């Protein structure tokens, strides 16, 4: 009898404890990089979420890309990290491997349908052997943008899905002209950022059948076999034909495509709200195919949760809401991102969005041949060794072979130091 009474008391206490926990308002912080427009949209998503979950209050904290990362690190160093924060997939391993991210696998096990309808390739970067420490929020595939007015003026056909890399090179050469006749080129065929792999060179290497790194990220393969041929191709456009502006020329214009001096560019969906206001006609086409087929890069921004947050449940509820159909629809209406939920991506919300009347389907079709942008420990340092090492090539100061031969050992040193 005594035991039963005790059990009853314990149960009663537990149940009040549980109900207390449910009733106490919880405040979580969600930190992300982005623009004021993005903050405004996230505030709407958060308001919807708070209406549905009156006990959880979410504070959204937005910084620009550069200060975001140093602020985040400083908050972690000071012991006051945000509960939920945005993660760029390539940098995920740098954070996850240091044990500061929460394993979300238990939550997924408890909610087996949570990821239904999410594009599998957007999950790939986060999935590790012992669980998943982040979930994709939205993703980006890289496609070819072209300036219709410049193509019309040159009397050339617009890029289409039959284009090869050689077609790209030929068209770019034809579109590189000295418009005002002063002896200096002032219009180029193609502008593509050659520093980071994402916007152009990874796609070219993959379409040539090459690889960038080996599977366990211990070897840099970007100078071997077909990959080197891919570099020769890029070199032929950037250095031999000069149909791409070199880095010192790019700084004169900011974004040469937006400035109307580059007929084509390779970039992701995030530029569309900005490009929507451009004073010329433009559209998008798939990445041209190389000798070994067509390829492009897919990368995602994701949500991660701080490992030591006291509000993990609230954080999970917020993430679940943000990748739900309602949250993703709001995010898509913003115009920057591609939703990770297939049902939203294939709906008019994405395909017929009001931002710009272009062929948004191209971005979704790209998933069929896209490679996931590599994510590994030491990514940023490795990328700097490669990007900095190639810079003199594009400025015409050293040869591509010379650069690659010195980049590979230095890049491998970075990989070895981050094992």
């Amino acid at each position, binding site marked *: 009898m005594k035991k039963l009474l005790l059990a009853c008391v314990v149960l009663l206490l537990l149940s009040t404890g549980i109900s207390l926990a449910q009733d106490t308002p919880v405040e979580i912080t969600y930190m992300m990089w982005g623009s004021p427009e993005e903050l405004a949209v996230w505030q709407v998503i958060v308001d919807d979420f708070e209406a549905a979950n009156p006990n959880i209050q979410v504070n959204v904290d937005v910084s620009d890309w550069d200060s975001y990362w140093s602020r985040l690190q400083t908050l972690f160093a000071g012991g006051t990290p945000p509960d939920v924060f945005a993660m760029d997939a390539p940098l995920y391993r740098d954070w996850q491997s*240091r044990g500061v991210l929460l394993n979300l696998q238990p939550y997924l096990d408890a909610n087996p349908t949570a990821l239904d309808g999410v594009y599998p390739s957007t999950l790939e970067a986060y999935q590790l052997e012992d669980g998943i420490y982040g979930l994709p929020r939205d993703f980006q595939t890289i496609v070819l943008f072209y300036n219709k007015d410049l193509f019309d003026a040159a009397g050339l056909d617009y890029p289409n899905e039959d284009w090869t890399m050689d077609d790209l090179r030929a068209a770019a050469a034809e579109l590189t002209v000295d418009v005002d006749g002063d002896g200096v080129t002032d219009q180029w065929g193609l502008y593509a950022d050659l520093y980071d792999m994402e916007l152009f060179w990874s796609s070219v290497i993959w379409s040539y059948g090459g690889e960038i790194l080996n599977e366990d990220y211990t070897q840099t393969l970007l100078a071997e076999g077909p990959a080197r041929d891919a570099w020769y191709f890029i070199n032929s456009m950037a250095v031999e034909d000069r149909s791409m502006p070199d880095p010192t020329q790019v700084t*004169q214009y900011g974004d040469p495509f937006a400035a109307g001096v580059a007929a084509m560019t390779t970039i992701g969906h995030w530029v569309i709200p900005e490009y929507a206001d451009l004073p010329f006609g433009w559209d998008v086409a798939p990445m041209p195919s190389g000798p070994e087929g067509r390829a492009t890069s897919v990368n995602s921004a994701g949500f991660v949760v701080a490992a030591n947050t006291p509000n993990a449940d609230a954080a999970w509820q917020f993430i679940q809401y943000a990748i739900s159909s309602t949250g993703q629809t709001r995010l898509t209406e913003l115009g920057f991102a591609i939703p990770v939920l297939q049902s939203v991506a294939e709906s008019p919300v994405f395909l017929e969005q009001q931002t710009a009347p272009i062929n948004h389907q191209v971005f979704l079709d790209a998933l069929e041949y896209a490679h996931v942008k590599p994510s590994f420990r030491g990514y940023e340092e490795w990328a*700097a060794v490669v*990007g900095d090492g190639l810079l*003199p090539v594009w400025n015409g*100061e050293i040869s591509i072979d010379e650069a690659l031969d010195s980049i590979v050992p230095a890049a491998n040193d970075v990989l070895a130091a981050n094992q």
Partner: protein
Amino acid sequence: METGLKPIGREQWWVFLLLAPTLFGLLFGVFGSVFATLGISFFSWDLLTPPQWAGLENYLSLLSDPAFGKSLANTTLFSLTYVPGVIVVSLFVALLLNRRIRGVSIFRLIYFLPVISSAVAVGLVWSWIYARDQGILNVLLRGVGLQPVNWLSSQMALFSVVIVNVWGAIGEGMIVFLAGLQAIPRDYYEAAQVDGATAWQEFWKITLPMITPSIFFQAIISTINAFQAFEYIYILTRTTGGGSSVPTVVFTIYRTGFNYFRMGEACAQAVVLTVIIVVLTIIYFQMQRRWVVYE
């Protein structure tokens, strides 16, 4: 330093009281972070997980770090050209403006303007001057039939950046040298003129020796500035990944600490930079006895 008034008795309290705000800031603001930097340089710390004792490991790894070596070489080359550049050019300007000519204060104002202008705005203007195709410099070069120069390419950028930094420092140097020039008693020159000295002789025998204290001061300040130069270099040579086509030590410190998750190593780089500046300053002070003339 035997001249001047000395506080006596209760006046000494006032000295400390009036110095207190500055001392407080130095103690907790400056020295705090200086000692923290020194301390962290002996730890392996990624900012995310607790620091681990590393002893001298951070310093040893600097020896084999090609990025740090390259940036140290850039900083050294920068200083070797910047310091003499600032001294010679600003002394020349000070000499020109140390005479009674019409509108002299306007000229002094113009030369001082870069010092009080926003480095970012000025840097952007210079990036237009240096621009590859539409830049004024290259338009001028083409105008006289010469080949345009790629001023901000990896090979030329260091040189171009030194020019901007020297230009930006003329104002400061000019003020220091003007003060030095105006402190030279007029009767020295009068005596020299009586003896029939030429203007050239006056400069070498009177002006130059008399302003060696100003040159000494300006050399130290310029050296410290050279090792810490950042704004113009950043604006003119930055690359996509937060780097630079002529990365100096200040660049590598930031990148190593915040982008590469190695705050301990970044602090070790900062300590090395500080030690270099301190050693150079000591050398300057040692050499001071040989060439600086005090009245």
